[in-house]
């Protein structure tokens, strides 16, 4: 008779979870594509309404290799980058000024609470009246989408910064500016990253929506316009290719932020690597 003692404290995973994550994703995607193809073959739906996956992928390939999709993506990402930069700089300035002056503090809080819940595409009509049908209108609405969630998060980060660290800074006799750059800003980084991710998500949604509206109004270039043009000429495969591109770029941007987080706040123990408890 032998006694088997489980020495392994980590419970062994079985079944679906034991497969590598990439394989799990691939299988799930494969099921979606298979279901899609199966539906197209079994029904007599017109490819003009719902194209089969093969056609969508060839449209994707054509779009990216000819440069049409790549160019549209580049235009949109450039606009997003500019707006994100402006939004983040503004958010940082607002937060720092709010720390110096209590009137500004109140004003920023009021503006944030009023404008953060507002879908920034709602600002598009007034932006068009003010700036006309050009990129300035787009930048205006996207900056609006970015600046408020980022401000909200950075200022929360400043407010909740560990008081002991602030006191260490006071013992060192730091100037208010060094206190901001050397203590408060890094201490607020977990919040700032959350704000940036939210801002980026809002900005990305807003820019695609605003470009769709611009597409209707006749201005050309970005991913939203690409989608709208494809719809206009009933190139449904290209509509799908555009949507897939938008989704993939959203995932890539998110992954980029996670990469930055892993090299900063996760490495410094200011944020857990994962929020899920695997059992």
């Amino acid at each position: 008779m032998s006694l088997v003692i489980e020495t392994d404290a980590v419970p062994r995973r079985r079944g679906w979870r034991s497969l590598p994550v990439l394989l799990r994703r691939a299988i799930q995607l494969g099921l979606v594509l298979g279901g899609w193809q199966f539906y197209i073959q079994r029904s007599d739906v017109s490819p003009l309404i719902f194209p089969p996956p093969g056609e969508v992928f060839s449209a994707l390939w054509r779009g990216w290799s000819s440069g049409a999709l790549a160019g549209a993506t580049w235009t949109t990402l450039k606009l997003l980058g500019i707006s994100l930069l402006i939004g983040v700089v503004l958010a940082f300035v607002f937060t720092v000024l709010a720390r110096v002056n209590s009137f500004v503090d109140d004003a920023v809080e009021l503006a944030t609470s009023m404008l953060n819940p507002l879908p920034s595409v709602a600002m598009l009509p007034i932006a068009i009246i003010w700036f006309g049908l050009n990129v300035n209108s787009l930048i205006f609405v996207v900056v609006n989408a970015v600046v408020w969630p980022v401000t909200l998060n950075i200022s929360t980060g400043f407010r909740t910064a560990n008081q002991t660290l602030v006191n260490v800074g006071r013992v060192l006799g730091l100037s208010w500016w060094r206190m901001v750059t050397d203590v408060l800003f890094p201490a607020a980084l977990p919040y700032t990253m959350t704000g940036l991710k939210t801002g980026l998500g809002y900005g990305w949604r807003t820019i695609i929506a605003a470009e769709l509206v611009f597409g209707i109004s006749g201005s050309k270039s970005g991913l939203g316009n690409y989608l709208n043009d494809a719809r206009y000429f009933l190139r449904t495969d290209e509509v799908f290719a555009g949507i897939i591109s938008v989704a993939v770029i959203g995932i890539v941007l998110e992954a980029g932020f996670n990469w930055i987080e892993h090299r900063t706040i996760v490495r410094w123990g200011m944020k857990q690597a994962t929020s899920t408890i695997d059992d």
Partner: protein
Amino acid sequence: MNYSAVSPMLDVVGLSLGYQTPAGMSVAVKNVNFSVRRGETAILLGPSGCGKSTILKSVAGFIKPLKGTVTVADRQVTRPGPDRAVVFQEFDQLFPWRTVLDNVSYPLRATGKAGRAEAQDRAGHWLGIMRLEAAAHKFPHQLSGGMKQRVAIARALALEPAVLLMDEPFGALDPQTRLRLQLEVIEVVKRTAATVLFVTHSIAEAALVGHDIIILDGTPSSVVSIVDARSVGDPTSQEALEVGRQVARLMGQEASHVIGD
């Protein structure tokens, strides 16, 4: 009092501290007088909530006195400064985004005491004294509580403060680690001839670490007595027990509690 025989490094005169409440001024500390000689360690000892940490914060410059003055190296304290480096009780007093070495060298750069290269050298030296060389390139979250406190002590000592302020630095540690760190601090303080103001509620710690034990009690609290603990050599000695008993008597506690604390 014979403390003023030598010009003291830290001199607290007629210190009263309090805070504003809706009902009026609430006085927490009233007319406290004591001084600490150069190279000696004074203990502020008293029950929880007696205002000993408040006194330390006032010496650090975080709290303005209602009455009285705090003088460090012949200069009156008006605000926080690196001449009164503080070791806090909280483990999270280290900058999480800086390595251990960087946590010790940054204050030297920020206060203009050293350039980048020299700050690194000096930080390395102090890490050596606190036996932390192996942890130099780790981040604080990778360290145990005791190691974090040792880094905080190295950081404070590296500033070569006129007075080192320690606010229950070992209060959140387990007894074994606490004893080890107490002995280590005694050793380092002796080696570096640092002047220290040390807050604790542990009689054993007070008898072990201090030259003078300043006992606080009452509401608002004031100095009840000052016990000379210079005769105490090591924690197991008869003198340590004697001082502990004396302090306990003054604090109105059973002497039998002293050993277990």
